[in-house]
Each structure stands twice: as structure tokens, then as C-alpha cells.
């Protein structure tokens, strides 16, 4: 691992029975950069996300995280309490289905304020203020602060999830198809929001997507996966404008045709 990376992984391998999901995958992520992992379903990209975030253990290989003090941690050797704490503070995870990451029976304000309260925030007024601020930042009407997420549209739920995740200013966010299942126009607005927030807050992110256009819009670097293997990696524009590997070429050309 070089001195500067925020997250690194070497030789990650994982098989489900006889099916290889990850085959000696290496990853490097620098602070403040967005890395897109693209591929079709079955490429291993979501598995990679889960292994990088410690949610799934690899058969072999290591993942290291550098904390704000500069110390390296082996993510899979970490004690469960420490990993859980990391997920609630320094790290964030944006799910494809926001319902999995929201408390549907708790108001929007409560959802956004939870991570603050988990970290010890004990002033109702301040928590509410922070929640209002974040709802505004993700373009949810402040009036909705006391509404239950049940009444929100798909796009609003996703934005609420983002607010809930970013409220503690995580340094590293994992995103699993954050725009999946949304209308094209809603997607565009959401992508714009993500791009603005990530760059303003200097958040590093690993973004999994099957959609090349999303990768092009948001990511500095891109990793292309096919059947568990990283076939190509590099700066987004370079890889997408001048794909070297046959599979990348296929992906890029199929987007143009569509």
C-alpha cells in the first residue's frame, strides 16, 4: 500500500461454490476520489463492494483502510465493534434500495439525525437544525422534516438516504447502484447532487454501477470487471474514450448503440 491511498486491496479472491466471484482483484482508492466499478450483473462488482466494506470475507487477500490519524487497519482482521463504529462514522454505505438503509417508521428528521445522536449529540434543537440543513442540501423540502419516509417518492428516499449517510461527514462512501430503479430525469438530478456533494465535501467513494454513463459523469477512475476479473482500469475518460480490452470495447459500444 502506498503512503497516500485511503483504501487498498490486494489479491482479493472469493468463490461461491465453484463460481468465481473475485479473482485476485487489486484496488487502490485515494482520498477525495471517486472510483467506479462497472460490469454486467455477475461481474463481481457488488461482491467487491461488500468485501471492501468488510461486509463479506474474501477467501484470500487483504483490504487496508487508513484512518484519519494515518494508521493502517486490516479491515477483515478488525474487531467487530470497531468495524461497526467505522460504518457509523468515517464510512457510509448507500444502498440501491434506500428502504434498506432508512427507518421507514421514523420521520425524515429522525432518520437524518440518527447518526449524530449515535455519536453523542444531545441537543434537540441542534440536531433538528442539522437535519433541516441536510434536507435542504439534498433538495428535500424542509416542510417534510416531520414526515415519514413512507410518503416519499423513490428519488426522495434515495436523497434522504444520502443525507442520513453524509450527515457525519464520512471520508469514504460505498455506493451500490445509487440510481438504479429510478426514472431517467430523477437519475440525472440525483447524479448531479451526488457529484456536487462528493466534490464539495472531498469524499472518497467506490461506486458500483452497470451504467457507463453514470461512471463517466461521476468517477475520476474506472475499473471494468468481467466474471470476477478486473479487465481494465484507469482514468475514466481515457478508458471510455480509448478502451483497450475487448470487453470494455463491447461495453462502450453497446452504450453508443443504445
Amino acid at each position, binding site marked *: 500500500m502506498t503512503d497516500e491511498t485511503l483504501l487498498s486491496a490486494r489479491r482479493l479472491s472469493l468463490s461461491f*461454490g*465453484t463460481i468465481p466471484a473475485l479473482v485476485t482483484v487489486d484496488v487502490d482508492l485515494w482520498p477525495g476520489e471517486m472510483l467506479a466499478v462497472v460490469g454486467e450483473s455477475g461481474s463481481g462488482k457488488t461482491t467487491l463492494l461488500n468485501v471492501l466494506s468488510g461486509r463479506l470475507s474474501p477467501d484470500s487477500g487483504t483490504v487496508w483502510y487508513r484512518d484519519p490519524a494515518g494508521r493502517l487497519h486490516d479491515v477483515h482482521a478488525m474487531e467487530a465493534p470497531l468495524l461497526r463504529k467505522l460504518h457509523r462514522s468515517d464510512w457510509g454505505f448507500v444502498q440501491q434500495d434506500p428502504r434498506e438503509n432508512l427507518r421507514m417508521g421514523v420521520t425524515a428528521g429522525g432518520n437524518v439525525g440518527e447518526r449524530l445522536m449515535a455519536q453523542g449529540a444531545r441537543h*434537540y*434543537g*441542534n440536531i*433538528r*437544525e442539522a437535519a*433541516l440543513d441536510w434536507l435542504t442540501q439534498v433538495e428535500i423540502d424542509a416542510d417534510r*422534516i*416531520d414526515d415519514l419516509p413512507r410518503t416519499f417518492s423513490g428519488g426522495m428516499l434515495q436523497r434522504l438516504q444520502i443525507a442520513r449517510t453524509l450527515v457525519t461527514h464520512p471520508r469514504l462512501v460505498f455506493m451500490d447502484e445509487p440510481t438504479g430503479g429510478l426514472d431517467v430525469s430523477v437519475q440525472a438530478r440525483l447524479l448531479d447532487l451526488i457529484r456536487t456533494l462528493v466534490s464539495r465535501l472531498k469524499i472518497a467513494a467506490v461506486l458500483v454501477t452497470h451504467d457507463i454513463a453514470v461512471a463517466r459523469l461521476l468517477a475520476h477512475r474506472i475499473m471494468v470487471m468481467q466474471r470476477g476479473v478486473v479487465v481494465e482500469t484507469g482514468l475514466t475518460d481515457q478508458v471510455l474514450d480509448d478502451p483497450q480490452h475487448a470487453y470494455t470495447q463491447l461495453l462502450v459500444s453497446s452504450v453508443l448503440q443504445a
Partner: protein
Amino acid sequence: MAYVAVKGGERAIDSAHTWLAESRRGDPAVPALDLAQIEQQLGRAVDRVMGEGSLYDRELAALAMKQAQGDLIEAAFLLRAYRTTLPRFAHSHPVDTASMHARRRISAIFKDLPGGQMLGPTYDYTHRLLDFALESGDAAASAPSAATDDAAMPRVHDILGREGLIERDVAGDAEPGDLTRQPLAFPASRDVRLQALARGDEGFLLGLGYSTQRGYGNTHPFAGEIRMGEVSVEIEPPELGFAIDIGDIILTECQMVNQFKGSKTAPPQFTRGYGLVFGHAERKAMAMALVDRAMRAAELGEEMTAPGQDVEFVLYHSDNVEATGFVEHLKLPHYVDFQSELEAVRRMRAQASRQPDVVEQASREPVE
């Protein structure tokens, strides 16, 4: 009129108990129940009380039923409370149901099998027509008997197991857990789960088992074998160094053959669900086997979608003595807490009527 604080709780309880004793006895002109009558002629209820009371003693169960006026959960409670006071002096060897002296043995998965299909004394195939002849006199019908064929009666699971068609149950060395001594902890191992099911409420397990058949966590069950009969209970006193037979008990055992599990590389095998209860209690044994298998969902890599598969849900709510205690505890005075709720609601209503938009204000203006 001046308020006089109500006193006399002691007297009230005493009077209530006297009245209870009277109503338990009923009309004194009617002959009192004989324990032997209960034990002999209400045998299935006795079996249920023994099972849920976790104590094999037919006479005590009959006594409990008489004392409880036929309330079977109350009777099970009496047995359990009594059981707590009994000293334990030995553990038996695991009973060998393969050598059961079976009165009844059926299999739904084979037309015929070694040992044969023995119907035994069953309600199956009776026509549920009230028999008014029973109103006056109950002449004991005499069933024809035949010499027992001591042919071996191998367990169906062993028959399937010889071909490797069904998963093996591996005997462990660890001491089995005991819920009557230790609190339930999760993850709960299979021995503890089975113990909880064996003493669990028949109705609750029946409902859950039924739900798995209807799609709430389907386990694709077949009744591999059900047998009911006597097994001997053996203990091995350390002074003797060998096992001695201390008596026989009647058990009902149900082995379910369930959804096979496997893949292209791991050859598929049927999986198992198991039920074992005191006395003649098929419904309970079968329900237990269905729920046992459903609770293995996580272990067998199946999706957990239904209450019957949720181990915590099943184990925490299957004990009817615990359940009835807590449900019925709502009868205890709760007026102090209710008073607090009353005051809280009154306060909130007063606040709401004074300032109609107080909540709206709170949402717009941060508190300084």
C-alpha cells in the same frame, strides 16, 4: 360521602379461593372425579399435560387436571411448579426409539416397509359422528388381538440413509442444554430448540406448522414415519457401571422427510425434521417436526421469510406457561402507570389547545 380507602385484600383473596374450591367441585350431588378415571379415560389430555408440564407421571398429571378443572395449561403449570422442587439424581441414556415396542407405526412415503404399517388405536379414518351411546354407559369394546410378529422395525430414516438419500444426524459429545436450568441464549443449538418444542404449546406449534405448509416458509414435508409405543428408560448408576432399566414410557415420534438440498457438486439429499413427545400425541409430534425443519432455514441456506423460520420468534413464544403468565398479568393493577399516561395525555392536550400550532413552530424555529 367520605372516601374510605379500600382494604381487605387478604379477605378478598381467601373468599375467592373458597369460592373457587366450591366451583371446582361443582354440584356435590354429582360423584367426584376419580384420578384413575381421568388417567384412563382422558388419556390424551393427560399426555398433553405431561408433555407441556415436562414431567412424565400420569397420576400427577391427572391430579393437576382435576385441580385445574380441566384447564390444561393451568395443569401443565402445576406440574412444572412441582417439577422444580424435585431433586435430580440421574440422567438417562438417550431412549432408543428403534427398539420401541410400537403400538402404532405408519409411513406415508412407502406403501409397505419392514415391520409393516400398523394403524394402532387411532382416530384416523373414524367418522366424526357424535356417539350418543356414550351418554349412558360405556361398555368397553374388546379389540381382537394377535400374536406380535417380532420382526424388526427399522426406522425409515435408516432405510433412506443406507442409500445416502437423507442427511445424517451426527451425534455430538457436548452435554445437551437444559432450558429448565439455563436461560435461552442465541444462537440456540438444535438440542435446545427441540427441547423448547417438546414442551411448547401444541396449539401454537400446530398453527406455525400449518403456516409452513401454506407457503410461509415451505419445507416440502413428507411423513417419513410416525411411531407410538413404549420405550425403556435406562440409567447407569456409577456404582454399578452398567445400565439398568428403570421403567417404560410411551412416546410418539415423527420423522419428516423434507426438501432436498444440494447442488451440481454436492449431491442432493433429503433433509429432516424431528418431533418427539410424551404419550400418544401425534398432532404435536408432527407439528414439532414441521417447525423443527422450518427453523433450520438459516443453517440450510434457505431464505428466511416466515415466522415459523424465525428461531427467536418461535422459541420465545412457544412456552404457554410463560405466555399465559404474561398475557394474564395484564389483570394485575396497572393504575399507577395508567395514571402517568393519563397525566401525560392531559398535559399534551392542554398544550395543544393553548397553542394550536406549537408543533409547527417547533419545526421552523430552532430552539435557542
